[in-house]
């Protein structure tokens, strides 16, 4: 079971001090939070992708590559990578590069994005958002698994003889999670490919996402990847922890009430009780998180938001500490004890390499000498099976 944190990179006014961090301060704060998460033994740090203020993260791979260089063991992920408005070719290249630089400590979560103008800003049609997400992933999946891709579809220009470089580390693509909160087609796609399914589990009633998670589990089994309870499920959540319950509520309340998302329209108590948000002592957060396992079944990844709503850096770091030293160790033990036999862990780069090569050596693609294109001669890599030659475009 993996535990970690995810951030949307919001740059929000601190409702207590009244000051808003600069973008520069917030970017450095996020790096600090990720480093601390690594130090206290959390398994995952994930960052969002946005293209409008008040967010600071538009280029997750740049940020995560920097964090990779400063950390030792933590898996770096996204929450989410926009599979609609990004070119899947660029996603294939950027995340493969990140995967190399991070030594395999990379996976990614794909999502559609919910900011309407981002679609037209990037030349896309939001009414085609779902088609874009599905078709772009189909292409991304192939780009990471086939050295030379011929492709045509509706979402981008056709490809003939295209090779996404670099090839994934050890020729093993990063593991992919599909994030969805309402769309059965996304759950179906995750199930079809045997990928992970992630429900953000925030801003919605308790267990609201259960029908989608169950749909994914059933279809995962339908496609022969394992039993429904062996499907790879991730859940989000939001946490604010203090040693004493009343301190947690007291210290969190001004940030909650000052938040532009929650603002004045939600009551903290309603959200604490009616949604997966956990505010309380370490034990209370542990107990609430255990209800997720009861409700959704055994799952593989739990991420919390701990740095939103303008929390100052020191407070966010304290949250990371409390998660890493008190909440997660107890949850690891308890969830492991409750977990049914045969439920796998989430795939990691080492586990995927083992699954592909056993004890043998991993493939290390070496290009042939430069021919200027992939369209003539054999495949671009020295070891490519000659039977898998590219289909060449017709030349008049």
């Amino acid at each position, binding site marked *: 079971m993996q535990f970690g944190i995810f951030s949307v990179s919001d740059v929000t006014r601190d409702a207590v001090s009244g000051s808003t961090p600069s973008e520069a301060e917030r970017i450095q704060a996020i790096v600090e939070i990720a480093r601390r998460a690594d130090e206290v033994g959390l398994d995952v740090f994930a960052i969002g992708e946005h293209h409008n203020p008040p967010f600071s993260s538009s280029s997750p791979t740049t940020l995560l590559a920097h964090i990779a260089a400063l950390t030792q063991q933590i898996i770096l992920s996204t929450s989410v990578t926009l599979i609609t408005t990004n070119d899947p070719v660029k996603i294939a290249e950027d995340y493969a590069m990140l995967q190399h630089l991070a030594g395999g400590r990379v996976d990614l979560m794909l999502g559609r994005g919910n900011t309407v103008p981002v679609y037209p800003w990037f030349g896309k049609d939001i009414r085609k958002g*779902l*088609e874009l997400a*599905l*078709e772009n992933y*189909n292409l991304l*999946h192939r780009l990471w698994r086939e050295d030379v891709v011929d492709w045509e*579809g509706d979402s981008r220009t056709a490809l003939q003889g295209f090779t996404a470089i670099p090839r994934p580390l050890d020729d093993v693509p990063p593991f992919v999670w599909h994030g969805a909160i*309402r*769309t*059965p*087609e*996304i759950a*179906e*796609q995750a199930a*079809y*490919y045997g990928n992970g399914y992630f429900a953000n589990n925030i*801003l*919605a*009633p308790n267990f609201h996402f259960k*029908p*989608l998670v*169950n*749909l994914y589990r*059933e*279809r995962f089994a*339908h496609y022969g990847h394992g039993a429904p309870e062996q499907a790879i499920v991730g859940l989000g959540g939001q946490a604010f922890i203090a040693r004493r319950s009343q301190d947690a509520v007291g210290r969190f309340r001004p940030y909650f009430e000052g938040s532009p998302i929650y603002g004045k*329209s*939600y009551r903290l108590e*309603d959200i604490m009780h*009616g*949604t997966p948000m956990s505010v309380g002592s370490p034990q209370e957060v542990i107990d609430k998180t255990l209800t997720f396992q009861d409700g959704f079944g055994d799952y593989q990844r739990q991420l919390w938001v701990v740095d939103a709503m303008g929390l100052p850096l020191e407070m966010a770091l304290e949250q990371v500490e409390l998660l890493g030293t008190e909440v997660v160790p107890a949850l690891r033990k308890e969830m492991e004890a409750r977990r049914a036999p045969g439920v796998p862990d989430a795939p990691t780069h080492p586990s995927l390499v083992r699954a592909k090569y056993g004890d043998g050596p991993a493939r290390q693609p070496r290009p042939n000498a430069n021919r200027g294109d992939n369209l003539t001669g054999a495949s671009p890599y020295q070891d490519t099976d000659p039977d898998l030659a590219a289909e060449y475009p017709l030349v008049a």
Partner: protein
Amino acid sequence: MSTSADNDGTDPVEMAPRRVVVISAGTNEPSTSTMLADRITQRSLEHLREMNCTATARSRELAPLAVAIAQATVSGLSPADLQSAIEQLASADAIIACTPVYKAGISGLFKSFVDLLDNDLLIAKPVLLAATAGSSRHALVIDEQMRPLFGYMRALTLPTSVFAAPEDWGSTELGDRIDRAATELAVAVHAGIEHGIAERAWSGYQHQFAGNATRAEQTATDVDFESPLMRLATGRRAKPGALD
């Protein structure tokens, strides 16, 4: 055309008691809107009974749900009492919708409530439109605002709507209109139009997975995995073709 005579009495439409749900956005006690809705409900039940169609009516006043409706509008979270009202509408065989007219329009409370319903919650349901106002000059509010709203919801708005300004309460013609509208409601319910349309055309409308509609897909067994988008989800082209 199907009649009760030629379906051997086995038509499921005739089996279960029909449910009429009344939503009224009146706020006074007693509210004119609720009085009007009650009169319409009474006549509708009488007509249904004359057709040997067992029916029950439940009334949902929106005023006690005002805070819940506001919370749900800004938070997306439906408090339990609001959720139960939505579920009642979902399982209704007919709806009587009555709002007061404020500032030349339907009540904001009424519109806010409808805004919270899933797009497929009311598909083909007979809806009887009614409104009360302080002046007969507002008589077109029903046709200009309520009909388009329920048209968007793909509901079956009945031909006759009932509008009551103060003077109408002293006119027998109000009773005539109520009777005509109630007849339309009873006939539409008895004929099982909603059932028939949903049975044959449900997949042609937009739906929300695990939504509140009684026919909403809840599990994998309900889902059409051969739809164009589901095909695309599984690495195929959206439309079947030579490349499959």
